């Protein structure tokens, strides 16, 4: 019906929840087998999110952020997409090797996702209220009337003005930003334990974005929800993230706490990203960009996948793949020269 996937959550599931890692992705590998060849889209992604924590996933378009998220949700487009390695553990259990039924039950404990292309996901022939209420009826067995009342409350929670009235309106009557808020309301409706938000505030203006991020923050604190925030907005990331994982060509190239990453990025790609943001406090000249294009995933460059675009590249970079190595206890970088980057002033 819609593009928001909300899993069932048996009420008992929250009880006696083991502490520790909520969701872990380890060395995940995904490829798309297309007519043009095999696109290696995810090439060993490792990240995790704990309860009550916000992990921001940053990276260029096409770097595999959404495919990783789709694989976590179990909605990878198969074929052409195939998982070829790795684990996705929810509360310590690998979701990739368990039975479909088991997997549905674990998803049932509440992983929800707001999709990147949510704007086109609402069904044009049903009212917005009906589409939200459907979840409460189907998943929670609520009466039509109660479900509609809850739908209006959800619209109100995501700050849609006149929620009681607008619940009866159709998607085309909402502006782009308001439709995105409807999608967020749908994903939060059943109180997920982990929310994967793929560019959730991209279409929103700043005052509403601030409200939505406040709202997500509130929910997260209340429910100890883990949030995986996929975004290209380095401003939002600086405001809300606890940790950041930077992705490039299907790999994590840098992972660090938010403060250390902004203070001293330890990967040339991250440095490039931080330099290419337009700033509100000055009228800049031409923006610094990262030269070139992201690689075709049919032909990922040898060695470090970033080397054709990297201003620091050395001969070794075209030969050896730099592994994601720990730098001290809190951060990691996949660059042959990471140590030098961290030591610089």
């Amino acid at each position: 019906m819609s593009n928001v996937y909300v899993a069932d959550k048996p009420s008992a599931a929250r009880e006696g929840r083991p502490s520790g890692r909520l969701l872990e992705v380890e060395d995940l590998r995904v490829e798309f087998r297309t007519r043009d060849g095999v696109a290696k889209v995810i090439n060993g992604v490792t990240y995790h999110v704990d309860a009550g924590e916000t992990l921001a996933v940053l990276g260029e378009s096409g770097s595999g952020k959404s495919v990783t998220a789709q694989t976590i949700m179990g909605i990878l487009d198969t074929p052409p997409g195939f998982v070829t390695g790795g684990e996705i553990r929810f509360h310590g259990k690998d979701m990739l090797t368990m039975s479909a039924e088991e997997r549905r039950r674990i998803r049932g404990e509440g992983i929800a996702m707001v999709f990147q292309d949510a704007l086109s996901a609402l069904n044009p022939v049903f009212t917005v209220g009906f589409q939200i209420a459907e979840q409460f009826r189907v998943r929670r067995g609520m009466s039509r009337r109660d479900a509609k009342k809850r739908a209006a409350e959800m619209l109100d929670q995501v700050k849609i003005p006149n929620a009681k009235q607008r619940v009866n309106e159709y998607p085309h009557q909402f502006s782009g930003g308001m439709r995105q808020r409807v999608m967020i309301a749908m994903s939060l409706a059943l109180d997920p334990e982990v929310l994967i938000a793929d560019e959730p505030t991209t279409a929103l203006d700043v005052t509403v974005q601030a409200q939505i991020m406040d709202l997500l923050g509130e929910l997260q604190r209340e429910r100890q929800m883990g949030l995986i925030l996929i975004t290209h907005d380095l401003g939002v990331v600086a405001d809300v993230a606890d940790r950041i994982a930077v992705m490039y060509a299907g790999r994590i190239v840098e992972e660090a706490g938010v403060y250390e990453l902004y203070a001293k990025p330890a990967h040339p790609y991250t440095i490039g990203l931080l330099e290419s943001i337009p700033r509100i406090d000055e009228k800049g000249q031409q923006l610094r960009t990262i030269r070139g294009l992201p690689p075709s995933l049919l032909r990922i460059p040898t060695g470090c996948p970033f080397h054709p675009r990297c201003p620091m590249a050395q001969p070794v970079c075209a030969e050896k793949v730099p592994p994601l190595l720990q730098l001290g206890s809190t951060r990691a970088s996949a660059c042959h020269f990471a140590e030098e980057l961290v030591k610089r002033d």
Partner: protein
Amino acid sequence: MTESILEVRDLVKYYPVTRGIVFKKTIGHVQAVDGVSFDLHKGETLGVVGESGCGKSTLAKVLMHLEKPTSGGVTFNGQDIYKLGAGGLRRLRRNIQLVMQDPYTSLNPRMTVGDLIGEPFEIHPEVAPKASRRQKVQELLEVVGLNPEHINRYPHQFSGGQRQRIGIARALALRPEIIVCDEPVSALDVSIQAQVMNLLEKLQDEFGLSYIFIAHDLSVVRHLADRVAVMYLGKIVELGSEEQIYERPTHPYTQALLSAVPVPDPNSRHNKAIIRLTGDVPSPTNPPSGCRFRTRCWKAEEVCAREVPLLELRSGSDHPSACHFAEKREIVVSHEAGELTELPTRTL
């Protein structure tokens, strides 16, 4: 620079709100755009910023002649665009192009990239003879930084940034004079965004394009725009040069918007001077009397409910502002730590 290419006067677009299925009854109007006037100068970029639902896309649709305005007019190169015949309309469509907000829905999924970018040539065959089209499309792919080898691929095989480039290539195909960009970079990652912004600037220089650049990201608009119009609930509330709007904003709404821009520095988290707007954006079906911003404005006085503040030059300021009490205010938009200010909202 001062030569106007597009003159927009008192543009109004209302959508009827209806009830009933068989006997439709109009029970009100969404005042999506309500009395908007501005000029677009040759070769300039006019930025349009404002909250979701304030009428930016509606404005774009009406300017593109995709919808007729309820009232008001638009003159393009001296001609009223709503009075054009079939031939004139065809020329208009060539000269004003649109790059859309959403690269995920604006491209037909069943057409190859080559067909998508070549489609404008089918409609306007005089621009490129059939034999040269494939090459033209490949050139366009190159101009927007896409691999010309990918000409036979379908939109779903591209990521968002790549799809937005396809949209830009398509808009460029007919060599238009004006491109209306409705949120062209908002769905993109920063390095791609920077490339697309530089691309838009490059194309502007190369082809002498004029842009109407609609975006909610105020940093992006500052970077690209020569002048900026700030919209709230269907009206322009402040209009000025990029410097006037960003350095010396006088409308409380502009001030609130600027202060809410997230700053890419985690150290500013706890000491940012955000003017948190309380209350909701009122419904455009039934906007507040007088000043439409008054229900969320911390400076509102009794006069604000009575009198509509016109967009005009006011004492103590060098650009038009639609506020009875327009005045400068120091907005902390820098990356340095500022003081926390909480502003009370006055209710009437």
